């Protein structure tokens, strides 16, 4: 608690996200917090972790201070093991070579569905958002970790538009729709870490971030959360985690 002001919300997000990854995993990462977190994990507990980018990159090693502006830039290929066509790197997801998809999110609902296409009615939207990119493919074909800011307008009961499928309408609806593999695994926010109920497939809090109350989390969430005695509290970022993270983004492009 005394360290509370010693790190930003985004730093916390990056560090808690990094902790979700396991050594040896093959991770399909988006830019921003996901890439930062995956790179951080590589330098902490996951030396054998492989990062893939949608632009067609396997096993990139991101240099501190040289974070690529998108997953389709040459910087993504820095010291990579392989560069292949973007269609072919996405097909690796379909074939099953990828353990984890790791993305940011604009809007999520209780079943982990993500919206990055439309705010309002798709036929006459208030806002046309950029769209899915590889998000739909990644979330359709592998296990997902999403890192995002926790705000009530972002955590809604039902997204306006399912761009990237989570558990759809819960229970078996994902499998029944033709998506037998993968699914939403973790949501990491600046307030808490969430999993999904094995049966109902509804989002459930696993652990509160340091210094955060259950009420705070519920107040910032547009649907009912069920806290149980299992709901834990996350260890705060360590000095080592923080200093490594700050080395990776010295200009604080993603962690400010």
């Amino acid at each position, binding site marked *: 608690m005394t360290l509370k002001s010693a790190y930003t919300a985004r730093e916390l997000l990056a560090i808690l996200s990094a902790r979700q990854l396991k050594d040896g995993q093959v991770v399909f990462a988006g*830019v*921003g917090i996901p890439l930062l977190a995956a790179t951080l994990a590589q330098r902490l507990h996951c030396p054998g972790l492989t990062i893939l980018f*949608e*632009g*067609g*990159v396997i096993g990139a090693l991101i240099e501190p201070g040289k974070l690529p*502006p*998108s997953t*389709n*830039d*040459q*910087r*993504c*290929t*820095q*010291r990579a093991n392989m*560069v*292949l*066509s*973007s*269609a072919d790197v*996405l*097909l690796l*997801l*379909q074939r099953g070579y990828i353990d984890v998809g790791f993305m940011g999110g604009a809007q999520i609902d209780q079943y982990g569905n993500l919206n990055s*296409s439309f705010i309002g009615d*798709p036929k*006459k*939207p*208030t*806002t*046309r*958002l*950029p*769209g*899915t*990119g*590889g*998000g*739909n*493919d990644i979330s*359709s*074909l592998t296990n997902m970790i999403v890192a995002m800011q926790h705000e009530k307008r972002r955590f809604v009961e039902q997204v306006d*538009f*399912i*761009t*990237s*499928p989570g558990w*759809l309408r819960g229970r078996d*609806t*994902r499998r029944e*729709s*033709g*998506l*037998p593999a993968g699914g939403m695994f973790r949501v990491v926010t600046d307030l808490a870490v969430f999993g999904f109920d094995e049966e109902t497939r509804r989002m459930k809090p696993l652990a509160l971030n340091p210094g955060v109350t259950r009420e705070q989390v519920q107040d910032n969430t547009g649907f009912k959360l069920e806290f149980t005695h299992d709901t834990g509290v996350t260890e705060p970022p360590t000095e080592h985690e923080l200093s490594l993270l700050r080395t990776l983004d010295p200009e604080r492009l993603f962690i400010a």
Partner: protein
Amino acid sequence: MSEVIPYSKLRKDIAQRDRSLREKVVSLEEAASFVHDGDSVGVGGSTMSRTPMGLIWALIRAKRKKLSVSRCIVSSDGDLLFGSGACERITTSWFSQGILWGVSKVMRHYAETGKARYDEWSHMALGMRFRAGAMGIPFMPIRSMLGSDVLQLRPEAKEMDCPFTGEKLLLVPALNPDVALIHVQRCDPYGNAQIDGLQFMDMDLAMAANKVILTTERIITNDQIRRAPDQTKIPFFTVDAVVELPFGCAPHECYGVYEPMMRHMQYYVDLVNKDPVKGMQEYLERFVYGPKSWTEFLDLIGLDDLLVAARAGKSIYDT
């Protein structure tokens, strides 16, 4: 464009093309004349990478209209195509100026008012549409998009129960653009092209299209191509025109040659996102219609910025 071209027409179109080994070097202006009003146009590269910006710039200057554009991920190229009135529909998986700048106000202005269409497919689905087109088959089965609302908006795709496994699949329709615009690091006068680094969907796109216009940083000899035939990514007989155009992706990047000219991009984004109509108009007047040539456009970006971008571009090989 959402309709699959019947095989008989695909074959007839290709049979009529001159696929002989011949020189195809033309000026940027001549190349633009290969694209006609109403054409479906496939654009190579992705986001801000290896975008054939010179060709897009030339098409806008040539006042092309009613183009229907497809590209895996669309950046400021899509803004310009909508904003100039050259294009009525963009088929892509993601459309903004770049992740750094949030949502494109130009895209929003056109898509939200219905002045132009943004047809959204998943990234892989679009790749598989080009691939089916490249392979001469009418569709490709995939396992994504199912269950999502992205699919709800795309009746052009068809769900199917696999006759082998009973599994649910999505069949996405082949996409065979009338013409593809592709920028490469180097090619010979026949159109045999080498692409370094990120290839995106350009090989499939070249095979799928009924016509290909290449711009290239540099024209090399056919002898150079033949010395390393396993480095050729696009074969000459898919290509109809070759334009030598250094910095042909500016202000976007070309792998190993230059990174994006970020100062110009920032200026552009600020300008058009402040007012997607007037800002765009100002940009087009000053940077597209204004200069007499591509080199004059590059001069407006500024030699300083070009050199910085070129230095960063080559640094990918400093390993």
